[in-house]
C-alpha cells in the first residue's frame, strides 16, 4: 500500500526528469520553439526522444538485472556490469566484429548473449568456492574478474586496431543514440518485464537452496534461467549504449533497504528508480562541461563509487 504510493511518486518524478531531458543539450530547444519551429521538432524526434527513452530503458533494465543477480548470487554487492557479464558481452561483440563483420545484428546479439552467459557462469563458479563468511570477497572478486575480461577485450581490440569501437562499449554513453539506432533496447525492456513473471522464484532462490527445494522448485534451473535473462539484457544494453555501471548495484540496494526483498512488490520500484538515476546522470553529463559531454558511464562511475562505499561501510552484516 505504501509501496504503491511510491510507484506513483516515482513515475511522476520520472516524467518530470524526462521533460528536462528533452530540452537539455547542445542544440538549444525550448517548449515554445516546438510550436512553430520544424527543425526543433526534428531534433526532438530524431535525437532527444530516443536518447531519453534509451536512458530510461537501459537504466530500468540494468537495475532489474542487478536485483535478480543479487538474489541468484546471494550477495548484495554484485551487479552484471561490474562482475563480468557486461565485459563478457563486450567480448562477444568484439569477436563478431573481428571474425564475422558481415553478421546481422541478431547474430551479434546471440553471440554476445552467449559470451555474457559464459562469463556469468564462470563468476558463479568462482563465487561458490569463496568462504560464505566473507561476503565482501564476492564483489571484490567480481570487480577483478570483470576487470580481467575487460582488459582482455581492450588488448585484443588494440591488436586489431579497434580501440575506438570498444571504448564505446566499455564506457556507456547516450550521445550516439539516434532514432533507428537504439530500438534493440526495447528487447531489453521486454526481457526485464519477463523477469517480473518469475519474481517470486527469484525471491525464493534468494532465501537459499534448502528453502527453494522444499518449496518444490528446481534451484539450478531457476539460477540458469535468471543468468540467461541477465546475460541477454546485458548484451542488448552493451551493444546499443555500452556498459552502464553501478545502476544495478546501488538501486536494488536502496530499494531493498527501504522496502525489503519481496521482488514482486519491489521490482517495479527498482525499475523506475534505475531509469530515473540513469536519466539524471545523463543530464548531468550533458551540462557539467557544456557544450561538451561527459559519458553517462563516467558520471555513474563517480556517483556509484561514492554510494557503493557508503553501502559497504554502513551495514555490512546484511551482505
Amino acid at each position, binding site marked *: 500500500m505504501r509501496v504503491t504510493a511510491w510507484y506513483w511518486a516515482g513515475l511522476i518524478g520520472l516524467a518530470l526528469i524526462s521533460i528536462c531531458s528533452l530540452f537539455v543539450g547542445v542544440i538549444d530547444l525550448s517548449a515554445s520553439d516546438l510550436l512553430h519551429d520544424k527543425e526543433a521538432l526534428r531534433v526532438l524526434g530524431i535525437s532527444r526522444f530516443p536518447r531519453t527513452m534509451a536512458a530510461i530503458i537501459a537504466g530500468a533494465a540494468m537495475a532489474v538485472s542487478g536485483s535478480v543477480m543479487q538474489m541468484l548470487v*546471494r550477495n548484495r554487492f554484485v551487479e552484471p556490469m561490474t562482475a563480468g557479464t557486461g565485459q563478457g558481452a563486450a567480448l562477444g561483440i568484439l569477436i563478431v566484429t573481428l571474425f564475422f563483420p558481415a553478421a546481422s545484428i541478431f547474430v551479434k546479439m546471440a553471440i554476445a548473449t552467449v559470451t555474457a552467459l559464459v562469463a556469468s557462469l564462470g563468476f558463479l563458479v568462482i563465487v561458490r568456492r569463496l568462504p560464505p563468511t566473507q561476503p565482501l570477497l564476492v564483489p571484490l572478486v567480481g570487480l577483478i574478474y570483470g576487470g580481467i575480461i575487460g582488459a582482455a577485450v581492450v588488448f585484443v581490440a588494440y591488436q586489431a586496431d579497434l580501440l575506438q569501437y570498444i571504448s564505446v562499449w566499455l564506457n556507456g554513453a547516450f550521445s550516439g543514440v539516434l532514432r533507428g539506432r537504439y530500438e534493440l533496447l526495447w528487447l531489453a525492456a521486454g526481457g526485464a518485464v519477463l523477469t517480473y513473471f518469475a*519474481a*517470486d*522464484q527469484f*525471491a*525464493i532462490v*534468494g*532465501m*537459499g*537452496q*534448502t*528453502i527453494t*527445494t*522444499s*518449496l*518444490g*522448485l*528446481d534451484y539450478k534451473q531457476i539460477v540458469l534461467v535468471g543468468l540467461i535473462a541477465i546475460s541477454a539484457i546485458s548484451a542488448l544494453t552493451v551493444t546499443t549504449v555500452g556498459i552502464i555501471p553501478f545502476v544495478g548495484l546501488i538501486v536494488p540496494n536502496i530499494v*531493498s*533497504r527501504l522496502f*525489503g*526483498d*519481496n521482488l*514482486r512488490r519491489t521490482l517495479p520500484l527498482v525499475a523506475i528508480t534505475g531509469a530515473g538515476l540513469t536519466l539524471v546522470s545523463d543530464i548531468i553529463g550533458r551540462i557539467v562541461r557544456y557544450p561538451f559531454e561527459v559519458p553517462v558511464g563516467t558520471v555513474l562511475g563517480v556517483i556509484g563509487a561514492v554510494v557503493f562505499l557508503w553501502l559497504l561501510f554502513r551495514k555490512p552484516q*546484511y551482505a
Partner: protein
Amino acid sequence: MISIRNLSYHIDGVAILDDITIDLPKGKVTALVGPNGAGKSTLLSLIARLEPLQCGTIDIGALTIGQCSNRQLAKQISILPQMTEHVPRLSVRELVSFGRFPYHQGRPGPEDEAKVDEALQVFDLDDLAQRSVVDLSGGQRQRAQIAMTFAQDTEYMLLDEPLNNLDIAASRALMARIRELAHSYNKTIVVVLHDINYASRYADWIIALSAGKTAAAGSPAEIVTPKLLGDVFKSDAEIRMIDGHPVVLV
C-alpha cells in the same frame, strides 16, 4: 508412514549414515535424538530430498524419493532446517506466505491467505506480522520460520531442532501444537530434539541415533532408560518416573 530401507550416506569416504532401516509411524510424533554429529540433520535432509540419495530407499506414503517430482513432494512434505542460510529482508507475513508457494505458484487465493492468517495466529505472530524478519529476536525469527513450515500444510513435517531459541512457554506451546496436529489431523511429524524430557513428554515414538546408526527405537517409556543415556549420550544422569513419563534429572 515414512519407510527408510538400508540407507547409507558417505561424505568424502566417511560414513555419515550407516545402513539405517526404520519406519516413522503415520499420524504420530516421532522424536529423533542423539548426540551432536550423530547424523540427525543428514537423515532429515535425505528424507526431505535436499541431498541426493546414495544408497538405500525412502518412501513417503505412496511417493518414493527420487522417483516423483519435486513439486509433488512439496505438497506432501515440509522441512524446518536447523540453520537457515540467509535471513531475508521480508516481513513476517511475506515470509510465511512463501510457504504457500507450492499451491499457488505465485498467485495466492483466499484459501492461501486464510492459511497464512491461521499460521500467524497459531504461532502468536499477529503483532509481528508487519515487522521485518531481520529485526526479530532469535526466538521470534524461529517462530516465523516454523509458521512458514506450517503454512505449507503438508501431511509429513520434518522439524530440525524447532525448540532452538524458544523460551519455555513457546517450547511447550509448540510441542502441544505438534501433538495436536499429529493426533487430530493425522499428520506424521518428525522432530529433532536435544532435550530428552521434551521427547519423553511429547513424542509418541523415539528414535535414538548414534554415530550414523540407529541405537534404539520405541516408546518413551521403553527408550528413556539409564542404559540409553549411558550408551548413546555417555551421560550418567538419573531418571525418575513422573506421571508415567520418564524424566531425566539435569
